[in-house]
């Protein structure tokens, strides 16, 4: 059974990110930076109607705009569009200006149809049906255990709540997009993607080109968070434009489009009832949730990572429970998997009701968690974290903080899978001059994949990371799975390690050098003569596993006159198996927490019920947390090297909003039951609406 090296100099070190220098100098070429010879600009015309029958689209005038080389329809024939922003057509031209003018020249003949864009409206009958053949609200799935109605009567305390979360947009800073060149030689696509192979296969299928004629490249990309799998409609359009124009077409989406059409996290509307014995042991749980994944919801569509379903009762086990979940369709862009799909809202609702229970039973919230948490790892994390955070000193009975600005504390726990994909491959090449190349068709979204591979190769060969050339993001390289589910490290690291250990063994065998590592390396490689050594590797059992916990604590202060919430501190205790690269791992934790802060306090997609448009398709009114909004962040990584590499990207964003929401409730003595907890919502919870009676 393979094992990570006992002596690790680079694995687990604070080595800096391999691609740091190219990123800080602007030398790194992202998908949006790639400019093949003769490239054209591509742009999409989108529906400005939330629901309409598209009768005819006339591209003639667009094609006559100077500089325009091609124009295509998104789909032929009459069709129905079901959200503001759905693709209608696309153009390619010599400049952005030509494309803008061409879009304005496209004539669209439509019959607008009735639409519905809010969950509460869509649930009611009769609401306009998003999908004609099914009602907007799906039939609930029901999951029952024990006898929940009887169990409630046995409880010493029963608490209820109704909690909602908003639709959150991924908003990676680099938009979705591709530069595609489609000619007789095949299809080459530079793609901003989390899965070069998913783009390759998607394009091959959509364009009806054999997979071996499609190459996808993604050297550097600016974030995905779950939204960038497959070529997307925009990738197919770029390819078709390229074929029609006879030139590469770069089609990157704008921020406006990012807010409409390339994914989001579904909303939730959670009605929860929880009962327990006097000592806090959970006994009865009733849960009803609906939410929307846009047109990806309701009776007619599939879920698949973007689903509305939550995990209830999240990390806890309750012997008597009834869980009912449904999804409601609205005329809005479909959801897509978004960093820990389903989990932040699940954790938020569950940890909120747990805190209400703690208050009712007059138990310490952390003690209540420890009592009911089935995971030994998490229980230890709560104890360690509570002490480090200063829980005992900071905790006060809810709402008892004096003064206008009230402080409060809260906590929450998470679980995640991660784990490795057994199909991951890699290739190591050792050159006669001692230089090393490691290749893998995986991606680095900013997660540090490139660096992990270099550290592993360095430790295997006894070299330094800068002696390793890591090449990723090309479907010509050995297969790497999509970067999702926090599985990349656990997939790619074992594969790269396997390739390197096999390469080392082969080098030693071929050259007769018994230990070619470290100081012996140059001489051993020289013995290769003129032939480099190329060794494939694949994922091996024993180097990774799955299943992590994680807990977070938050301290907030709330200005009860302005409703402004400031997060003072977040303490995170997280396990992730073997830490391969400390710096990149810690940065992932920062990132997950910051995303959670946005989810808790600022981010929501706002739909207008009368016009059906997205009202905040920009960063002015869809608000991301900024440097000035940062709390003190305290991170403890629990090193569990015996578990191998697991993955950390998602678990660390799950409990943040839950902890912050609980801290706000603790500060105020009342619950702000909806995320994001904007000043308007905080003041409403305090009864300070100042509005009409």
């Amino acid at each position, binding site marked *: 059974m393979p094992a990570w090296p006992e002596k690790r100099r680079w694995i*687990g070190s604070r080595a*800096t*990110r391999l*691609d*740091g*220098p190219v*990123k*800080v*100098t*602007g*030398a*790194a*070429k*992202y998908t*949006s930076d790639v*400019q093949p010879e003769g490239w054209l600009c591509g742009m999409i015309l989108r529906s400005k109607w939330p629901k309409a029958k598209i009768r005819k689209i006339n591209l003639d005038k667009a094609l006559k705009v100077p500089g325009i080389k091609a124009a295509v329809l998104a789909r032929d024939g009459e069709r129905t569009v079901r959200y503001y922003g759905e693709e209608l057509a696309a153009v390619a031209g010599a*400049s*952005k200006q030509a494309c803008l003018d061409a879009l304005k020249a496209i004539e669209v003949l439509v019959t607008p149809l009735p639409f519905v864009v809010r969950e509460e409206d869509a649930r009611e009958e009769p609401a306009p049906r998003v999908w004609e053949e099914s009602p907007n609200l799906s039939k609930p799935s029901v999951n029952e255990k024990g006898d929940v109605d009887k169990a409630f009567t046995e409880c010493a305390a029963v608490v209820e709540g109704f909690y909602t979360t908003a639709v959150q947009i991924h908003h*990676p*800073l*680099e938009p979705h997009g591709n530069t595609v060149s489609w000619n007789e030689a095949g299809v080459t696509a530079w793609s901003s993607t989390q899965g070069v192979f998913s783009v390759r296969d998607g394009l091959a299928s959509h364009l009806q080109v054999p997979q071996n004629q499609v190459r996808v490249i993604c050297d*550097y990309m*600016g*974030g995905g968070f779950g939204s960038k799998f497959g070529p997307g409609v925009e990738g197919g359009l770029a390819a078709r434009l390229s074929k029609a124009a006879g030139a590469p077409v770069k089609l*990157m989406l704008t*921020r406006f489009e990012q807010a409409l059409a390339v994914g989001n996290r579904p909303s939730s509307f959670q009605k929860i009832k929880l009962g327990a014995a006097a000592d806090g042991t959970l006994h009865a749980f009733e849960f009803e949730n609906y939410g929307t994944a846009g047109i990806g919801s309701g009776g007619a569509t599939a879920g698949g990572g973007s689903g509305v379903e939550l995990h209830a009762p999240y990390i806890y086990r309750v012997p008597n429970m009834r869980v009912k979940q449904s999804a409601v369709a609205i005329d809005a862009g479909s959801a897509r998997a978004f960093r820990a799909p389903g989990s932040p809202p699940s954790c938020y609702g569950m940890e909120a009701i747990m805190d209400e229970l703690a208050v009712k039973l007059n138990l310490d919230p952390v003690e209540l968690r420890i009592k009911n948490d089935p995971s030994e*790892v998490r229980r*230890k994390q709560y104890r*360690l974290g509570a002490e480090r955070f200063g829980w005992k000193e900071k905790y006060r009975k809810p709402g008892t903080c004096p003064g206008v600005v009230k402080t409060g504390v809260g906590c929450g726990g998470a679980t995640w899978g991660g784990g490795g994909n057994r199909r991951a491959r890699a290739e190591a090449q050792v050159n006669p001059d001692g230089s090393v190349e490691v290749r893998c068709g995986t991606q680095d979204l*900013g*997660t540090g994949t490139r660096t992990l591979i270099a550290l592993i190769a360095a430790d295997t060969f006894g070299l330094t990371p800068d002696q390793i050339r890591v090449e990723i993001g090309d479907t010509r390289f050995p297969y790497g799975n999509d970067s999702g589910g926090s599985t990349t490290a656990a997939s790619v690291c074992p594969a790269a390690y396997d390739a390197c250990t096999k390469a080392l063994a082969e080098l030693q065998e071929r050259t007769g050098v018994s230990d070619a590592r470290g100081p012996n390396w140059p001489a051993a490689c020289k013995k290769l003569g003129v032939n480099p050594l190329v060794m494939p590797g694949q994922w091996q059992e024993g180097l990774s596993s799955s299943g992590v916990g994680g807990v977070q604590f938050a301290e907030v202060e709330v200005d009860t006159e302005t409703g402004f919430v400031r997060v003072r501190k977040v303490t995170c205790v997280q*396990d992730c198996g073997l*830490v391969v690269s*400390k710096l*990149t791992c*810690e*940065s*992932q934790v*920062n*990132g*997950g927490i*910051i*995303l959670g802060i946005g989810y808790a306090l600022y981010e929501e997609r706002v739909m207008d019920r009368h016009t059906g448009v997205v009202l905040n398709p*920009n*960063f*002015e009114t869809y608000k*991301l947390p*900024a*440097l*000035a909004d*940062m709390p*003190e*962040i*305290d*991170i*403890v*990584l*629990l*090193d*569990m090297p015996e578990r191998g590499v697991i993955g950390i990207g998602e678990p660390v964003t799950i409990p943040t909003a839950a902890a912050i929401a609980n801290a706000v409730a603790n500060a105020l003595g009342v619950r702000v039951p909806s995320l994001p907890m904007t000043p308007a919502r905080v003041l409403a919870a305090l009864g300070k609406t100042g509005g009409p009676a």
Partner: protein
Amino acid sequence: MIEAKPEEGLSVSRRAFLKTFGVSAAAAAAGQLDAVAQELSNADTEKLHGPGAVPITLNVNSKTLKLELEPRVTLLEALRDHLGVTGPKEVCDRATCGACTVLLDGTPIYSCSKLAIEAQGHAITTVEGLAKDGQLTPVQRAFVEEDALMCGYCTPGFVMSVTALLRKNPHPTPEQVKIACAGNLCRCGTYPRVMKAALKAAGVSTASNTEVISYASLA
């Protein structure tokens, strides 16, 4: 509303305007008047440029570059699409995120909200123009050492904002770093380390906020 007093001039001739609203110091006023008078006599300088493409000269990272662009082309677009200077990124195109930050005569601005035609006659510095002879600047080195970057898409913008801050104020407080970086967004989560990097480049080391503890050692 009140009509301005008669001595301020009923009809505003150019010279009368300059006399009333020009710089108070007489010498400076005279100098300005001379310079402006010279310009005023040159009818070309108030002419309309465009709407079609016109010759535009940009000074980018100390190089003089000539282009033919429509007036509606932004500086960001000129840099990226017409000059291949792709360090500044297009993320929002609406002056909300800072990824397009460049220095105009040393001052950080959003290049997405400056027309290329307006940027003529100014020294434009992009992230590519910072490192000399392949050596990272102290700010760039600090970003790498503190891991103040992840996907890196926001990084050129942050590097420009922090560089401009430290050139103006070599010893900023954390509050001043927040103000300088308030116009830069990141989605991956680099903010805590951007702060550390900025302070490090200013010679201030900060405590680490992370610890690795062996699980086996916990009770």
